[in-house]
């Protein structure tokens, strides 16, 4: 696995999401927004009909979204491994055992659970979106 810069990983995550056969097959109604809080950086993902409409690194403080998935950098580091270690291998596992927090409108998360689960597994290919303390480009999206 390569170790891309934060902006490279974000771009790769976007590219993989939009080209993923599962999301294309089942994402017709996958429209929502969520925040991935990885401790050192946050990533706002806006999905529209199964496609990444916008992906913002470290969004402004009052940016809105449907739900947030927050965990410490170590948990996300495990989550983004090609083969994640036990208890870092999914949002349910990490929420039960690693202190991950699911916040906001969880009904939207549940309505889109299949697609969200699949999309987040693409992080196993990209690796962590944000390195700890790494200086990164902001507003990577829209490119």
């Amino acid at each position: 696995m390569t170790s891309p810069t934060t902006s490279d990983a974000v771009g790769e995550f976007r590219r993989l999401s939009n080209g993923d056969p599962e999301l294309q097959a089942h994402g017709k109604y996958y429209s929502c927004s969520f925040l991935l809080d990885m401790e050192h950086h946050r990533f706002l993902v806006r999905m529209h009909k199964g496609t990444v409409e916008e992906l913002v690194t470290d969004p402004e403080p009052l940016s809105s979204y449907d739900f947030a998935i927050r965990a410490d950098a170590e948990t996300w580091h495990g989550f983004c491994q090609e083969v994640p270690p036990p208890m870092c291998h999914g949002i349910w596992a990490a929420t039960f055992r690693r202190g991950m927090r699911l916040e906001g409108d969880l009904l939207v998360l549940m309505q889109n659970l299949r697609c969200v689960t699949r999309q987040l597994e693409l992080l196993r290919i990209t690796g962590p979106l944000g390195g700890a303390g790494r200086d990164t480009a902001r507003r990577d999206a829209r490119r």
Partner: protein
Amino acid sequence: MASGRISPVTGHYVTIDVEDAEYKVFYLENGQGQPLVCQHTAGCHNHQWRGLLEDEQITGRYRVIAYDLARHGKSDPPLNQEWWKHEYRLTADHFTAFVVAFCDALELENPIFMGSSFGGNVALQLALRHPDRFKAVIPVEGADYSPGFYLDWWQHPHANAAQVCASGVWDLMAPQSPDHDRWATWFYYTQGSEAFKGDLYFYSVDHDLRHCLSEIDGERCPVIMLTGEYDYLTTPEDGRRTANAIPGAEFIEMKKIGHFPMSENYPRFAQYLNLALHHIHERTDT
């Protein structure tokens, strides 16, 4: 003579009475010898045992029987009740009575009982309540107590319950397990959402043996616990703690596998199952 590849596994129905309920229970079976009775996980059905049912290494010595609990798979809700007028909440009393009634109906002598997840928990209940009815129990992914999964999300009317149940248990499986088997398990879970939450009443609420473990006699009825390292609900630590508190019980941690081991990666599970069966054989047949 049929030319298709017909499995040796056969299906049957048996009608049983459990407390005040009458059930027509569907079960699959294959093999000869020591009865090995298998309980699927909550909200699922007996196809989870498809690998075991066709494992000739096992069926050459064991009569493997995998039933659908009432309200699951091909076992309907009670025949003699207006069940649709009540909320389904499975209790330890009813669950254990069901298993014993099923074994009695098939006239099984000294069966080994194996169950996973809520089946693992009921295996512990059976060892406590009916140590003389079973030769041994194999609680898979079980523990003395397993809170936190009795959730309204499983039946929320504004979400797709089939997908919430199936994807909600997705990361109970290990990332190393084969895609086809994980997706088969996911598929099974799209079929059982109406029973899932009621099953989990037993799993996360009614089942609580934290203060009873020392009353289980693991010498009289051997208890061999198996837990996968990717199980976030009943972790290996939970299984080990539970086994340590039961006199005579054993605990085996299973690597690179999760909460549905027989269904998500049977070849890997079979290695540990054979070990457990060997321990039971040594303790009871020699």
